């Protein structure tokens, strides 16, 4: 069974932490993963940096720009991840825009993922329809799960459709916004979480976009299986460096 599916079989709120590969420094990838592993996160998302990350806010954009300047790219990332599975059993997801994956070659990309022990993918600009038509088969053949997004604007019908295709979990985007840290959820967002929760979908839900503190993390846990935290963590390591990771995780948990 895929590590992602396994993690959702356990109880408790899932914390999935996103970081951009190659940031702050080119070779921080494994060190960050080790930190996250020992801090006890349930899932890790590695961002493959892209020049034009149009779903991302300034924090992740900026980390991507630096990562690219540092020399990060797809080849380097897979090279760094060679010993990933000697180090951790936590499920690891790559989040990346479609173009770098296309240029690397989809088949080759899947192969590399499998080789290093990646469990799934979030490709924000690969629409679920095109995935379904053209790409699902190949990703599946390498045992990779593809997770898709829903937003407050997604119709009930389409949510059900996505529920049928998304594997592992559904990424519930918290608001009308690009990525970025906010302080708390408003009543509109909570109503939306509740509405989706009550749909009793097949796939479990994780909330993403805006989770930044204990407050938002706990709230996310109430309406879903957990949360994905990106910009807040990037801000933290920009500030304090990567070796204060466990403090960050603790500050959100208790």
């Amino acid at each position, binding site marked *: 069974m895929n590590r992602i599916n396994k993690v959702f079989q356990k109880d408790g709120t899932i914390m999935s932490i996103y970081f951009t590969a190659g940031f702050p420094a080119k070779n921080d990838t494994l060190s960050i993963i080790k930190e996250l592993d020992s801090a006890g996160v349930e899932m890790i998302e590695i961002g493959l940096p892209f020049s034009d990350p149009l779903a991302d806010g300034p924090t992740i954009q900026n980390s991507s720009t630096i990562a690219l300047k540092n020399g990060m790219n797809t080849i380097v990332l897979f090279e760094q991840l060679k010993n990933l599975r000697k180090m951790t059993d936590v499920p690891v997801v790559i989040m990346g825009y479609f173009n770098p994956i296309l240029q690397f070659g989809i088949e080759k990309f899947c192969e590399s993922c499998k080789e290093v022990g990646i469990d799934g993918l979030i490709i*924000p600009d690969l629409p679920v329809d095109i995935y379904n038509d053209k790409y699902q088969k190949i990703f599946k053949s390498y045992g990779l799960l593809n997770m898709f997004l829903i937003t407050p604007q*997604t119709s009930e019908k389409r949510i059900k459709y996505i529920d049928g295709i998304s594997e592992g979990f559904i990424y519930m985007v918290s608001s009308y916004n690009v990525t970025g840290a906010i302080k708390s959820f408003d009543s509109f967002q909570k109503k939306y979480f509740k509405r989706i929760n009550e749909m009793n979908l097949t796939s479990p839900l994780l909330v993403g976009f805006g989770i930044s503190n204990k407050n938002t993390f706990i709230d996310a846990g109430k309406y879903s299986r957990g949360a994905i935290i990106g910009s807040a963590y990037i801000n933290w390591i920009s500030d304090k460096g990567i070796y204060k990771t466990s403090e960050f995780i603790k500050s959100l948990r208790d």
Partner: protein
Amino acid sequence: MINYNVDKKGFYGNFGGAFVPEMLYPNLNELALNYVRISKSKSFKKKFNQLLKDYVGRPTPLYFAQSLSEKFKCKVYLKREDLCHTGAHKINNTIGQILLAKELGKKRIIAETGAGQHGVATATVCALLGFKCIIYMGEVDIKRQSPNVARMKMLGAEVRPAKSGSRTLKDATNEAIRDWISNPVDTHYIIGSVVGPHPFPDMVARFQSVIGYETVNQLNELENKSKPDYVIACVGGGSNAAGIFYPFLNDEDVKIICVEAAGKGVNTGKSAATSILGKEGIIHGSKTLLMQTNDGQITEPYSISAGLDYPGIGPMHANLYKSGRGEFISVTDKKAMEWGLLLSQMEGIIPAIETAHAFAILDQKKFKKNDIIVFNCSGRGDKDLDTFIEYFKL
């Protein structure tokens, strides 16, 4: 017969589609479901055509350029989009989209702009119909096209600088998309060229097709023929080209030439000649040809003209290129500037630098004596005066 128009799924051959984050799905789906129906409705057409006539000043002339024709020994016609209100073809599209946005109940308009022509055209129609208007423009472009920035402000638009990446059109487009993601309900995003996710390329091409259809009528009147031998246009994203090619796309009697910006030279690393330098990939939600690294990072293009300084081309044009239907020629900054001056002094028409690129092919191609060559004179050079003055030390 091959069909060079868009298919039902939003593709031109292998190019196009809507490779966008789910956050944009509702907006694009709403557009895709409605744009053809609305734009073909009687009431829409009436308003659209009336504004094109009474506000934009259409039909724009098809002008027989005597001096050029004599010099290059063929019949050179200029489709005078430079005479449109606000100074370029861009307004045909913004009029169409603002009427569509109104029909869809939107209240707020965003747009990206490179040369500023699309920004001005958007700000203009927003003023006309009372929409709030925000224009994203790269910091670099804000500097080199300052008259257009001033115009947008006069028109009541807010100009927001795009400070990421190369700080040009590509980055302004990213910012606009981010804004749309954040404001999906009340906002319509008026894309300024035949780029971006479906249905934008087809929608923009349809609104611009008035250029081509007028040309057909005018050729009938002037030459007793309904088609030229060549249609020629510069290609940034490709909207002025798409507009004038539109009626001729599937008629291979009519040769199509797309002129791209070679910048300082195709192989100098300072170029925007996408067809030669680009590879298939995804930019701004569309599968097309784009300039990128081996790793799939989008590269920073270069051209002296802000309106051609884009690392992609529209999917229609990518298909024209790959299929061989269109001939692609690239023209350097130097040639384009020289042609800007030449056209000014030979015909009394100061073209936009974008537009000047198209004319430069007259030096490179041989035409037959009775060949009818129609250039899309996509815009006027008022916005480029500083650049011309500095370049030629006038």
